[in-house]
């Protein structure tokens, strides 16, 4: 046999033996996969979501309390102003009564 004939025989396409594909796939599946480090988000996701939720709740609560405080301060201020105006009004009237009586 000449060299060309030997090469042609060696390189000739051959069908794999039956069950070859299954065996290869089984070998792949059985191999251990390299450990992949979980991402920070995956590792602490639940905790972070809880913390973020708490921050939002606290911020909303703080906002509501501050708003109520501002409203109460405004109401107290308006009440004080009304009282002061009424007191000054009566004081002014009393003084003017005295003035009118003196002028009479």
């Amino acid at each position, binding site marked *: 046999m000449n060299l060309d004939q030997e090469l042609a025989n060696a390189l000739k396409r051959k069908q794999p033996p039956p069950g070859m594909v299954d065996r290869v796939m089984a070998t792949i599946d059985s191999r251990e996969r390299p450990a992949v480090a979980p991402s920070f988000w995956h590792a602490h996701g639940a905790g972070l979501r809880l913390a973020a939720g708490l921050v939002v709740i606290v911020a909303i609560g703080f906002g509501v309390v501050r708003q109520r405080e501002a409203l109460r301060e*405004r109401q*107290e*201020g*308006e009440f*004080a*102003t009304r*009282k*002061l*105006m*009424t*007191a*000054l*009004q*009566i*004081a*002014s*009237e*009393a*003084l*003017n*009564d*005295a*003035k*009118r*009586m*003196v002028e*009479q």
Partner: protein
Amino acid sequence: MVFGGDMRRGQIASALLIVFATAAPALAQTALLKLDNLDKLGASAKQVIEVTVDEQLLQLASKFLSSARSADEREIKELVKDLKGVYVKRFEFETEGQYSSADVEPVLKQLRGSGWTRIVGVTAKGQYQNIEVFVMTEASLIKGIAVVVAQPRELTVVNVVGPIDVDRLSRLEGQFGIPSLELGNKPR
């Protein structure tokens, strides 16, 4: 021995000085009147107007008043900036004779005391009408005003504590959207 006696005298003098120094502010004349004795008139009154604006409330009101919002508010803010309090009691009665001069006497007694000067005292002839205005001054500065308006069916006592411009105060009547508190028997 002599030295010890001098030291003791010095200590006593220092102690007395401290006592007087701390007691002086308490003994200082105040323009704040005691008006509690008038409260009993509320039982027979048709209407009672009692307004107590102490220093704390004055500060709150001053903080709330805005000079930029309106001229009225600016006027009031300016007027009350150094005040310590405004106290008003007004009693309106259905009929005459519901109170007597004896009820007003405890207030007038305080005003006849030292520190107060009566600047107006008017008694109308033929009817029970008596108006008195007192001021407390210190070094030409008004420390307080008291006005007692006694009419047949009405008794008003006003006590303003702290320096105030009386002319500006009298100009306030009928301002700030507050209707003038017209009451019967008033000379208008």
